[in-house]
């Protein structure tokens, strides 16, 4: 002990193009930007695939081959998988290869099966905030995601993680009801208090489901601080990081390293040495005989819950606040979200696949993140990740699209009335 549990989040939203007032009623293709800007979804996907997904998948495949004890887990959003299928099938292949082939076990020709050392988690298909607004829509999206994962990776997810690690007691209860054995959340100081994220907990009000908490210090050392020259620990080396992990020995059972997969090659560019760090890390961690790797399901199976954890209010892994404010703090965000979910009944009743698909794509959390005005003037991470010039441009495009969606609903209603 401790066991290291890696979970990588892999997601790309379908960004809305610069959709103007003139487009309302005339153009129903919201996500097909072809410009050179960062609103071009295909361009972004291809760029990130080249810089991050393909090289990192290759490294992990090699590490899985070299170290039989090495294990990882992924959560891949449905909107991301859809985009891979359309724009970059070779990248989808490389993810499937990781999850399918356990090359250390197969002798001779590679054997298709399920690699137990690569666990795939479930989330909402559209990387949405549906749990906050509609229990029915939330369940539907979890279902859709589950089917997609079984179809692509031949394994049935046992562990759930909600969009941006948004979590509270109610979510844990709901996810337990859906049959999952584990759930992930942010190990935020304000919910843990004196308690450590390096143990397994039982969410308040649940019977069996177990809670894994992100060790945000160690996770963010890699995800955020790795290349920061202002950081006193710069440069971060694999032996140094392995020492920090080993220091948990005796004070915890599992070190949960949860981060965006794009950390490797996209947020931290190749020239920062991030790939070499990743290549060297398993060996360094395994040098300490007490250390090992686990998948989330294994951690849940292996370790008991040490205590009940009561998290009545939502926590997330975003910003210093670790709350919902990145997506829901200003009037634009609240208005857009309310208008979107107010349409739920009409959209479902319209029974129109394209309408339903567009409505769901509009639920992706990133749309609301781009409207965030918190910290905007300070030019921080929100600005870095915003493909729009400002939160106001993001809102204008979104509000105009909602306007168009409303017109489509009205048109369908009218034609149904005429038929009746």
């Amino acid at each position: 002990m401790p066991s290291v549990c890696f979970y990588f989040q892999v997601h790309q939203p379908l960004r809305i193009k610069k959709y103007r007032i003139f487009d309302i009623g005339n153009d129903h293709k919201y996500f097909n930007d072809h410009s050179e800007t960062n609103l071009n979804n295909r361009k972004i996907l291809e760029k990130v695939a080249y810089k991050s997904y393909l090289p990192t998948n290759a490294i992990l495949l090699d590490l899985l081959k070299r170290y039989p004890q090495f294990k990882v887990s992924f959560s891949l959003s449905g909107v991301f998988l859809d985009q891979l299928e359309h724009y970059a099938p070779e990248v989808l292949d490389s993810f499937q290869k990781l999850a399918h082939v356990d090359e250390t076990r197969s002798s001779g020709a590679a054997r298709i099966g399920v690699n137990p050392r690569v666990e795939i988690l479930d989330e909402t298909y559209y990387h949405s905030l549906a749990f906050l607004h509609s229990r029915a829509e939330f369940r539907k999206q979890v279902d859709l995601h589950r089917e997609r994962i079984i179809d692509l990776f031949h394994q049935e997810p046992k562990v759930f993680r909600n969009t941006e690690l948004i979590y509270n007691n109610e979510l844990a209860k709901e996810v337990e009801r859906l049959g999952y054995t584990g759930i992930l959340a942010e190990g935020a100081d304000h919910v843990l208090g004196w308690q450590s994220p390096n143990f397994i907990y039982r969410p308040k009000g649940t019977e069996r489901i177990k809670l894994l908490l992100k060790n945000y210090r160690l996770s963010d050392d890699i995800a955020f601080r790795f290349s920061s020259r202002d950081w006193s620990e710069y440069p971060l080396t694999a032996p140094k990081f392995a020492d920090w992990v080993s220091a948990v020995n005796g004070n915890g059972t599992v070190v949960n390293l949860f981060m965006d997969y794009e950390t490797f090659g996209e947020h931290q560019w190749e020239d920062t040495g991030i790939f070499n760090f990743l290549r060297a890390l398993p060996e360094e961690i395994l040098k300490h005989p007490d250390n090992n790797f686990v998948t989330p399901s294994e951690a849940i199976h292996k370790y008991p819950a040490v205590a009940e954890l009561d998290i009545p209010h939502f926590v997330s892994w975003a910003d210093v606040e670790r709350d919902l404010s990145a997506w829901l703090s200003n009037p634009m965000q609240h208005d857009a979200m309310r208008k979107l979910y107010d349409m739920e009944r009409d959209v479902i009743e319209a029974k129109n696949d394209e309408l339903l698909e567009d409505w769901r794509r509009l639920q992706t959390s990133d749309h609301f993140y781009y409207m965030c005005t918190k910290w905007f003037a300070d030019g921080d991470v929100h600005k870095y990740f915003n493909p729009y010039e400002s939160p106001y441009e993001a809102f204008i495009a979104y509000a105009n699209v909602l306007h168009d969606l409303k017109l489509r609903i009205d048109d369908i209603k009218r034609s149904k009335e005429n038929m009746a």
Partner: protein
Amino acid sequence: MKVLMFGWEFPPHNSGGLGVACAGLARGLANRGIGITFVLPKKVGVSADFLKIIFADISGIKFREIDSLLSAYATSVSYREIRSRTVSSIYGKGLFEEVMRYALRAYHLAKEEDFDLIHAHDWLSFGAGLAAKAASGKPLIVHVHATEFDRTGGMNINKRVYEIEKEGMEKADAVIAVSQFTKNIIVRHYGIDPNKINVVHNAVDIFEPGHFASELLELKRDGRKIVLFVGRITLQKGPDYFLQAAKKVLEYNSRVLFLVVGSGDMERQLIEQASSLGISDKVLFAGFLRDQELAKVYRVADLYVLPSVSEPFGITTLESLAHGTPVLISRQSGVAEVLSHALKVDFWDIDEMANKIVSVLAYAPLHACLRENGNTEVKKLSWGRSAEQCSGVYNEVMLRERAHTVIA
């Protein structure tokens, strides 16, 4: 430290942002304990006594007047018109003669005054600044609020004005530009060493909210919205783009009034343009407004638009935000550099201008966020902050001057 400053009329006698900037900066510097002798052309009906009243709360500003017909934004044409109405024959026949005469008077004034450095605002006073430098041997800082390239939109540059601007900047010990936008123009078109140019952005003093404009509220009956333009009606300010955008907006929302506040040489052309676009019933020309009347207009408007073709700064933008009205501003402006919580657009992109105007009027939460965040942001842009940056430039120039004196 004592500064001999050549500036222009203060509010309420100004005709644009230059006077506002001179007043704001002088106030901010005086508050920092810098002594200022403020020199300006004497105008009939305005006396130094009056200025003393406006600045009664501030010590350390002294006023000197030079009898001259110069005024901020003077052009050869406007000067000849004023000259023709003047009986006295002491003034120059043309604008450039008057600038020379003003400089000569400045030379003598500089001999009488005690100061450490000279600060001259815009080209009409550069000659005076250089003359004062020659008379005293003290360092000169020229402050560029606009260049000939902004005023003309880059077409039909007046060579003599350009030469005076260039000479002033070359011979000055330091240049202050009101924005990076202006600094870039100075480097590109005047060939001035960028290391010599300091950017000191303009600012706004937040005023106490006055009483609300009830008579203007009538304009908003039946849910009508008001989109505002404030500025001199000249090519530089892009009022024609404003009207083209108005035409587009009205195709999507007919319950909008476009209010044009200001006067200038394009006024007649603009009125005719509104007619030919068929929107003259939706465009109101309010003429030049100031103080309470202008404040009322800012407050009643739903959106302020700055469509300038080339805007060194754009103080009216800050005034609008200070009054709680959100802004849509030209990217070709200095003020765009200091504001995050503003909508921005290229002045020529009429479609995008219309898209953003319609959106702000249609979506209340958008309006609310821009209003709230813009108002918070503008409070950080005080003249005190600009004066601090300006005195930093003073100190640098003085240090260099002393080092130079020691070596010499």
